[in-house]
């Protein structure tokens, strides 16, 4: 039982680590085009 739990934790940690690195280096956030208020003020 202990072995199974430990293996699950290892796999979870691995998946989280890979996901973090992919997000960090390959995921590009879209820059916000409306950053200056509630209305469309067209500010750039």
């Amino acid at each position, binding site marked *: 039982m*202990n*072995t199974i*739990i*430990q*293996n699950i*934790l*290892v796999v979870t*940690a*691995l998946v*989280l*680590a*890979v996901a*973090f*690195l992919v997000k*960090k*280096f390959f995921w590009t956030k879209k*820059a*916000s*085009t409306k*950053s*200056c*208020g*509630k*209305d469309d*003020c*067209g*500010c*750039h």
Partner: protein
Amino acid sequence: MGKQINVALIGNPNTGKTSVFNALTGLNQKVGNYPGITVEKKEGVCKLPRGVKAHIIDLPGTYSLNASSLDENVVIELLLNKNDKDFPDVAVVVSDVENLKRNLLLFTQIKDLEIPTILVINMADRMAYKGISLDIDVLEKELNTKIALVSTRKKTGIDDLKNLITNFRDLPTQPCLNAREIDPDYFTRLQSAFPNQLLYKLWLVITQDVNFGNVSRKEVDALDDFKTKSKSDLKRLQQKETIKRYQFINNTLKKGQTIDLAAAKDLRIKLDRILTHKVWGYVVFFMILLLMFQAIYDWSSIPMDFIDGLFASMSEWTKDHLPQGQFTNLIAEGIIPGLGGIVIFIPQIAFLFLFISILEETGYMSRVVFLMDRIMRRFGLSGKSVVPLISGTACAIPAVMATRNIESWKERLITILVTPFTTCSARLPVYLIIISLVIPKGRFLGLGYQAMTLMLLYLIGFGAAIGAAYILNKVLKIKNRSFFVVEMPNYKLPLFKNVALTVIEKTKSFVFGAGKIILAISIILWFLASYGPGDDFNNAEAIVTSQYSKENLDTETLQQHIASYKLEHSFIGLTGRAIEPLIQPLGYDWKIGIAIVSSFAAREVFVGTLATIYSVGSDEEDTIKNRMAGEVNPILGTPLFNFASGISLLLFYAFAMQCMSTLAVVKRETNSWKWPTLQLAAMSSFAYIVALIAFQVLK
């Protein structure tokens, strides 16, 4: 009341704006970026009297509202857009008592936006020293505002400022200058075209091409009955506006300020004569660098040894006290050694930033920029390139972004391309561990060989940057040059609070920025080193036991052979073996190869990777340094980290473009993959060749 108000802290560079911000917010501050752009956004919270809370934004330093850079644009866009969630209820303009005339230009412009504005006259403690006296009542009357006379150094005036912010509703909002005075006919027509808009805001929309509310430059241009002026006419009107403002400021200061030049004691001129001297200036700078690196070594050895031992004990404790299994192994052999590889360098990083921060706070850094400009110009760079190159000692990413104030595109491009040569803080862990392994501890004239090697690496990095700039200058044929103006702030004793906050903030960003990447990479590396494909890995125990069956090895030695065999046949071992032929001529083995590949994410990962690889399968409590010192080159039979391979590695890291994030920023700043690709190829090839020559000559 329990209400939160927005306060914008605005001012010219070098007026002590950040000191006022620190005095108001203490540690309740955070640093981020403005949305969509990479200009640093500093904000914090300050508790005011009567339970009012102030959300304070430290806006980028600007000389006027006539923006010429992205930083300055941020200030204008915030002040013009009432819909912005950060739009200030009150603007606090910070000025320096010694440069009041120049600083008041920005104040009058902000006041004309009819935002409640408080004037902070900072560095009040220098008034007597400089023979300055102010009549605050007269100045308040003339400028139609409230003034806080502040000295962040002596901690005076901050409570008055807090009271003024709390009572911001009592502040008059009448403008200093009637915009119509600039050109009555033109401004009358402008006002008639937009009767509900503030005239000065309209003027900024036209001259700065920024939009606010529902009025944009295009709309102004589109109006049939209102013809805006040509660019040159608008420039002429802007000049007229500036003259009008200075006339107003001169009249105001004549009434409220007196300067007794006879009473002014100027140490500054005497110091500048030495510190910016064409010979002594460089000698002093060199001596300061030497002392700095020596101190970094001497002061940090005790805390570093302590941290190293602590992490080794933590690994041991984890193995002994947690239930046996792979997750425990992951923590003990992967995560703890990996993180230990970064935490150990906190003392040295903190001391480095302590010195840099003190040099900046005292005003000496501006003199260094001035000194370096003389060298820069010979290599085809502008003086403005000095700032990115010097800030590159912290990190290349903000340094590349700092090139935005270089007007000439070619000069900017060259600066972007050469900045990653300067030694950033991420190289420091790599340098420090290799130096400690291959450079003897002896001293020459009281200066340690190790400290001198470190300083030499910084100088090599800087030399490579200007050398590369010289070549690029010839290749790219720069014809246009930008002018260089640097403001020399007065010499000051550094404020402990400012220095401490800088050290904390920089060290935190180093540890947490790199720490998360290192944690993730440590987990992946441990997995790749603990698992492998095929029978060789799965039957490692049986294979090794039968191999050594005749040698009668004790259990511990046999276990070490099994662990070593497993590591060689793990995923990471196989990958390392595949790249080994490429790096063997440089004196490295496959484990160093893996560390070099993984440190492409961030250079400091190098040490963490080796710590993780050397820990996998090891039951002994040992420090990273000892493990590295004990590694043997399987071919030569000599210590793996010897003088030749160590120097080769140091030079490789000095020149290689080992940073994914920097490449991403270069791509964004140049808007092309061409430049980062060329940069990566050129720097990596150069690093490889230099490292190869170094090893082959020294081995």
